[in-house]
């Protein structure tokens, strides 16, 4: 708790973030007013389908949004109380990689194919800490040891394609954690991996997070992973947060029909033989998000008000909110 007193402000506080993409078919509103915060040592899982804006939000936070076509049109990203979006480019660069870093989904394409993994790791120390090449090489070996890559010393000169998928993702993690950042964003870190390896990599990430007391934003569409490691969850739909809750509350009783649909579509052993639930319909076209609740066309509970009035985030209980006009009814359903 010593740690907490030094930092009276939240580690990361995203306020009303808005991101647009300019496409040939018009302006796609990828992120429409996202709010979330992360404290040191805390894990926030951001859940949503592809296209829900979860990755775009993360890219905006990191400052690696492809622009053009992407553009941040509003909001604040407060990192230790300072707005990253208004910061100078150079100041922001120094934060990237050192104070906040990112683990990408596909390590094979995210690592430079023509540079040895050792050089790619060592680079972090050379650039941010001004270390000599020799010292940073030694650091790279230590890091590879730390993420439990066998024979790290012999493999430091190897190239990404010479490693297995799991090992590559460990290197990716080592790179993200090299300078012991305060915040790590992991964008579907295990999706590209074999099921057997997924758990090992996730455990490693969770272990290192505890060790360094980092804030972690875990972007995923895998509800199974979330239950094990997250403290709280933000569910995104069409560029908005539709429900946010402490992880156990959400699993016990969702307060938004979309979350409910997600939970119901998980196959469960005790319901073997029954038809699996699927949310009907498709996510909305982001260039023409319907008025009212964007989920209303697919919602089993939708009423007239849902098609006309956009629901704000209603406070459900402490640390819990739902963007549904009928959150009470949804909550009581089970």
């Amino acid at each position, binding site marked *: 708790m010593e740690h907490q007193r030094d930092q009276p402000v939240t580690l990361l506080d995203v306020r009303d973030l808005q991101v647009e993409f300019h496409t040939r078919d018009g302006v796609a509103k990828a992120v429409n007013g996202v709010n979330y915060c992360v404290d040191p040592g805390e894990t926030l899982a951001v859940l949503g389908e592809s296209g829900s804006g979860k990755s775009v939000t993360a890219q905006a936070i990191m*400052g690696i949004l492809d622009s053009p076509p992407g553009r941040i049109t509003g909001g604040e990203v407060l990192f230790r109380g300072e707005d990253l979006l208004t910061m100078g480019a150079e100041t922001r*660069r120094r934060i*990237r990689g050192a104070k906040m870093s990112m683990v*990408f989904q596909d390590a094979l394409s995210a690592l430079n*194919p023509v540079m*040895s993994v050792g050089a790619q790791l060592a680079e972090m120390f050379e650039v941010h800490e001004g270390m000599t090449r020799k010292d940073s090489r030694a650091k790279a070996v230590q890091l590879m040891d730390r993420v439990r890559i066998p024979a790290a010393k012999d493999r430091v000169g190897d*190239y990404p394609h010479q490693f297995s998928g799991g090992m590559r993702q460990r290197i990716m993690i080592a790179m993200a954690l090299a300078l012991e950042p305060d915040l790590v964003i992991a964008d579907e870190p295990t999706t590209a991996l074999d099921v057997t390896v997924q758990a090992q990599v996730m455990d490693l990430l969770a272990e290192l997070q505890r060790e360094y007391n980092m804030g972690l934003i875990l972007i995923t569409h895998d509800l199974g992973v979330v239950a094990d490691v997250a403290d709280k969850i933000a569910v995104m739909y069409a560029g908005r947060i539709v429900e946010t809750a402490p992880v156990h509350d959400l699993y016990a009783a969702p307060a938004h029909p979309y979350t409910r649909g997600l939970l119901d579509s998980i196959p469960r052993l005790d319901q073997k033989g029954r038809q699996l639930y699927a949310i009907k319909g498709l996510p909305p076209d982001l260039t023409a998000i319907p008025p009212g609740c964007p989920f209303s066309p697919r919602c089993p509970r939708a009423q007239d008000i849902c098609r006309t009035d956009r629901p704000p985030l209603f406070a459900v209980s402490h640390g819990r909110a739902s963007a549904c006009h009928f959150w009470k009814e949804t909550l009581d359903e089970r």
Partner: protein
Amino acid sequence: MGRYVIRRLLQMIPVFIGSTFLIFFMVYALGDPVAALFGDKAPDPATAARIRKDLYLDEPLWKQYLHYMGQILTGDFGTAFNGQKVTELMASAFPVTLRLTIVALLFEIVVGIVLGVLSGLRRGRSLDTSVLLITLIVVSIPTFVSGYVLQFLIGVKWGVVTPAVSPYAPFGELILPGVVLALTSLAYVTRLTRTTIAENSRADYIRTAVAKGLPRHRLVTRHLLRNSLIPVVTFIGTDVGALMGGAIVTERIFNIHGVGYQLYQGILRQNSPTVVGFVTILVIVFLLANLLVDLLYAVLDPRIRYA
């Protein structure tokens, strides 16, 4: 790596035999070198037969080819019909063309890559648009047109350089011809570099590098350039052959006595040993350049090295 080199060398052999045989066939089978030797006069049959025998021209073509290749392997490229040794002609011509090619290559590499990188990094801006437009125009103007126009403007009208090159062709006099020779390739190199830079700058690993907080110059030099230049290197390597072959036109414009000049004379006078000899050397140069590219490729791209 060693196995890779050997495999590439072995693959070159059939290509070498095929290309040289094709040239040999065209020159010896379709033309009549002996008749050409005597020009308008009808040759004395006995002399003609003797010459044919000396040159193995009475043998079947494949035997002639084998014989010729056997000679070449011992360094004997035969004698031109005017009595001069083909190797002597080569000794005077190749250094000139080599200097010309070096000037062109340097120009192509330096200017092409710099322009390509700059416009690739500024995709869609005015610099990029004008580079694209200019390269398109340059590609469209055939070398012999740009050669004459530049020679006229720079050499004659403004008198910046001498319009014709002296027989020894020192580097200084070869700058304008080198530029002319390089122009088309230069435009291609620029466009290719621009494309690969633009493509690679959207690659995932570049996004990673940005997320690592690397300064821009390091991002470009260490991550972007090395990946983007791999296809460019390939193109430049294969271009060496095209440049030396294309020097025929440039050498004619600037009256340079290099390979193109000798070849042109050889063809005009149906001087078969000269033609086949020079072409054989050019094919070898071309193949060696390709091999060099393959090796360079392996150095630049570890995925190939360990394949």
